[in-house]
């Protein structure tokens, strides 16, 4: 890694260290983001047509970006017919200068502003203030950070990182009197003082959540009602928004706004949605309000032309990716972001500001995939982020530790082949300290046990008979660390009339993806697809007992390879328990088990299971087999993220343990002594953080079979 990137990396590590230590800040951030996730989950669960709404929302944005050129022209024409002045600007400087000119020409002094990430992108307020204008942020969250002289730390909740006491102090200072730390009273005081600002504003500046090509109208979504006052009272309004906000028609907007509101605010509807076209008659003097639109490009059209990044334009700024992201939960948008925050900020910063800045904080993404699950537009953020990581690495090189971990499989093979000696050696304190010093693997992170008696070796002398043909993708851990998993899988399948084959295969390659090494990921993908597709052609369905591997087979490989073979493999790949569940539903699975032979346990769904299924097939199947399983109230990653949690200190281990803390506490409070989870790495993390026993569900199910005869 070159010195530029190295310095940036060290600065990030320092931010991470401080962030992890700041427990007050962490508590505020965690509470806010967790509530955001839970509200969104609840509102979608309460809406039977939620899925079809999201399907529509995806289609609409894709079409809108496809037709952007035509829609832009129609929008400008419609807006101009409505008497609105429309300005297209290529970059932030032009946008800022234009707004300054408009505000000067209007003889304005006081400006009231709504929350708008586009105005943050061009740093409008700072420039206006420098020119001597009095700018007041009216969104309460934005007002708070304006008073604190900070940037927003979240896409939709700008002050989510602040405590009630901090907000109290800010407003007390601003209003010149001691307020009690009571949100009700602070809001009341803010309402009064901001009401004055609304009434004296000469100009109102807003963004736009959406813009409608048919009519030239803009759409503003709020809960507070500030957008209404900012647009109703002043004699001039200026709406600044990105060109990608334009969609075709009102019906489209009605769908998108619901997706935005449910994912972003966790409610069915926000208190207010305003659709504004043309300046209406002003209350103060019977004249028509003057309206301007400032439509910003700033890299968006370029993003549209880049097939790797185009889908970032589907973003509706709901902030759901911020709420669910495990590293964002701990560190917040001031660390995981630049102006935009969280996962979406990686591609957005890359194109609107700089690839280097985006690349620097992109390493905070641990590829758990949950952001994609939370995204109402199903943007493949993990892939976009990996591509930014890749380009950044091409420019500045890659850290030694990451290059080492990309080749994880080689080292595991060596450890396996040289076991049990390797296990003995790797448990020695001095060896772990040496490894930490030389390759930056944290000495506190226990290694799994390696075995020479690999699953592959066992399978070589194993014969399989049955009428259903199944190919098993065993992946690295089950092969070389815990072959009981694979043996259980095979025996269960054979008890259900399956004949199992083990095609030639390598590890899934996920760690390479995590570090943005697309070449290595593609290499693993090609190898596995090549051998697996042969098995499919011979009539096999593919099963995998490692959720991350299943994710690779079904999602990542086809996206990376874009080949017919990869598509075939994806179509025929199943999570092991999903495969069994399909048999069970058809009544073809051996399901008579003795009750109560397995003790009550906690089931923990790995990230890649959660992003693939609404309800985990493992949980469904084991419950229908009579197991008493409880789930934890927890909706983000356990923190280990594959090899990430092995890296030294702030590089990985400390972050992973900070993320996992909440999970560990809640699991320990559940008073059960066993945890069941499919992921090999989640198992390591939970064992390390809770000292509870963690077992793979395949092993549990095989025990059930054996105990039931």
């Amino acid at each position, binding site marked *: 890694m070159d010195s530029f990137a190295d310095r940036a990396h060290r600065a990030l590590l320092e931010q991470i260290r401080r962030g992890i230590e700041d427990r007050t800040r962490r508590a505020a951030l965690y*509470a806010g983001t967790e509530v955001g996730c839970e509200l969104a989950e609840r509102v979608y669960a309460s809406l039977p047509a939620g899925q079809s709404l999201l399907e529509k929302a995806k289609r609409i944005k894709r079409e809108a970006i496809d037709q952007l050129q035509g829609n832009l022209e129609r929008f400008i024409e419609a807006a101009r*017919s409505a*008497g609105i002045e429309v300005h297209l600007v290529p970059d932030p400087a032009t946008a800022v200068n234009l707004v300054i000119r408009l505000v000067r020409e209007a003889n304005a002094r006081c400006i009231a502003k709504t929350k708008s990430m586009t105005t943050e992108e061009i740093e409008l307020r700072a420039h206006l203030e420098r020119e001597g204008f009095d700018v007041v942020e*009216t*969104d*309460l*969250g934005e007002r*708070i950070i304006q008073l604190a002289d900070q940037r927003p730390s979240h896409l939709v*909740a700008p*002050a*989510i990182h602040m405590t*009630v006491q901090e*907000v109290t102090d800010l407003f007390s200072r601003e209003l010149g009197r001691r307020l009690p730390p009571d*949100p009700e009273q602070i*809001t*009341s005081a803010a*309402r009064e003082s*901001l*009401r004055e600002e*609304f*009434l004296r504003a000469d100009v109102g500046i807003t963004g736009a959540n959406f813009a*409608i090509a*048919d*009519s030239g*109208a803009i759409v503003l979504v709020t*809960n*507070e*009602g*500030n957008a*209404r*006052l900012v*647009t*109703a*009272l002043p004699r001039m309004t200026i709406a600044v928004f990105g060109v990608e906000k334009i969609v075709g*028609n*009102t*019906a489209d*907007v*009605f769908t998108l706004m619901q997706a935005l509101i449910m994912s972003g605010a966790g409610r*069915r*509807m*926000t*208190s*207010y*949605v*305003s*659709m*504004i*076209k*043309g*300046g*209406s*008659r*002003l*209350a*103060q*003097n*019977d004249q*028509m*309000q003057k309206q301007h639109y400032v439509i910003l490009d700033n890299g968006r059209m370029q993003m549209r032309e880049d097939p790797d990044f185009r889908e970032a334009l589907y973003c509706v700024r709901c902030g759901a990716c911020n709420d669910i992201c495990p590293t964002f939960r701990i560190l917040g948008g001031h660390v995981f972001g630049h102006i935009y925050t969280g996962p979406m900020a990686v591609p957005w910063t890359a194109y609107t500001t700089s690839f280097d800045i985006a690349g620097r904080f992109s390493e905070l993404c641990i590829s758990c995939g949950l952001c994609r699950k939370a995204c109402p537009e199903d943007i493949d953020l993990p892939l976009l982020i990996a591509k930014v990581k890749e380009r950044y690495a091409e420019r500045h090189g890659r850290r030694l530790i990451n290059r080492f971990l990309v080749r994880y499989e080689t080292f595991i093979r060596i450890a396996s082949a040289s076991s049990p000696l390797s296990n003995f050696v790797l448990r020695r304190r001095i060896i772990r300290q040496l490894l930490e010093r030389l390759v930056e693997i944290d000495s506190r992170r226990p290694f799994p046990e390696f075995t020479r008696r690999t699953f592959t070796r066992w399978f070589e002398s194993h014969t399989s008979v049955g009428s259903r043909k199944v190919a098993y993708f065993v992946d690295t851990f089950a092969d070389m660390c815990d072959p009981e998993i694979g043996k259980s899988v095979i025996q269960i399948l054979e008890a259900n009339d399956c004949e199992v084959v083990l095609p030639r295969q390598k590890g899934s390659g996920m760690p390479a993806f995590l570090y943005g090494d697309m070449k290595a990921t593609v290499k693993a993908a090609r190898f596995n697809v090549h051998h697996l597709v042969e098995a499919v052609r011979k009539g096999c369905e593919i099963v995998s007992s490692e959720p991350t591997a299943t994710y690779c087979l079904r999602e990542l490989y086809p996206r990376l390879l874009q080949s017919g073979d990869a598509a075939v493999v994806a179509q025929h790949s199943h999570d092991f328990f999903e495969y069994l569940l399909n048999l069970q539903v058809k009544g073809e699975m051996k399901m008579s088990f003795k009750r109560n032979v397995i003790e009550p346990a906690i089931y923990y769904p790995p990230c890649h299971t959660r992003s693939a299924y609404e309800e985990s097939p493992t949980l469904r199947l084991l419950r229908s087999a009579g197991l008493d399983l409880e789930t934890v109230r927890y909706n983000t990653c356990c923190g280990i993220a594959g090899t990430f949690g092995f890296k030294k200190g702030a590089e990985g281990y400390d972050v992973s343990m900070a993320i996992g803390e909440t999970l560990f506490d809640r699991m320990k409070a559940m008073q059960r002594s066993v945890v069941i989870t499919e992921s090999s790495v989640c198992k390591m993390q939970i064992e390390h953080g809770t000292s509870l026993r963690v077992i793979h569900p395949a092993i549990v199910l095989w025990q059930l079979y054996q105990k039931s005869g």
Partner: protein
Amino acid sequence: MKSAGDSSGETERFREHVLAAGTRFLAVSDLESIKSYLARLVEETQSKLVVCDKRVSKVISPAAPSIPFHIVTQTSVSRSEFLRLLKIADIGISLADLAVADTGTLVFATDDETDRLVTALPRIHVAIVSANRLVRSLDEAGGFVGRSLAENRAIVISLISASSRTSDIGDIVIVGVHGPKELHILLLDASFSMEA
């Protein structure tokens, strides 16, 4: 505008969503019942000043002298005086164009900011909507909104689903930020026409 057959199911759904949002709801039959509701509300909240939007003004105006509290209509004072009173009014009464059963949403369309401010400035917003303006879904409301936006005049459409709120301070939901703290919806029987 709609068939009588499915209205009671929709009315019930509308009412449920409205109440779930913390909004007050009452089905009323005529102008008298609106006036008595207002009288009770004024007393409960110790309000001194009530303002009306244009359409409500037209209906209320003739009755205004007989109402015991100070009610200002847009026909009774000059425009600038009305704005002055708007800024200090306790209650704003407006007539909605549409109501959406699925979400408890009211739709207002206007080309006059004074009317919009009646629904935005006072602490309490009383919205009257006729039962024959109730539609089932947001998509249907979208049709009305699309047609309104296509009209050849400046226009502002407001979708109001609850009173003003925020959770920006410590994730605690506080009601009544920049908009009204209280929203009251009076669903007016279809047989009574507000179009005076």
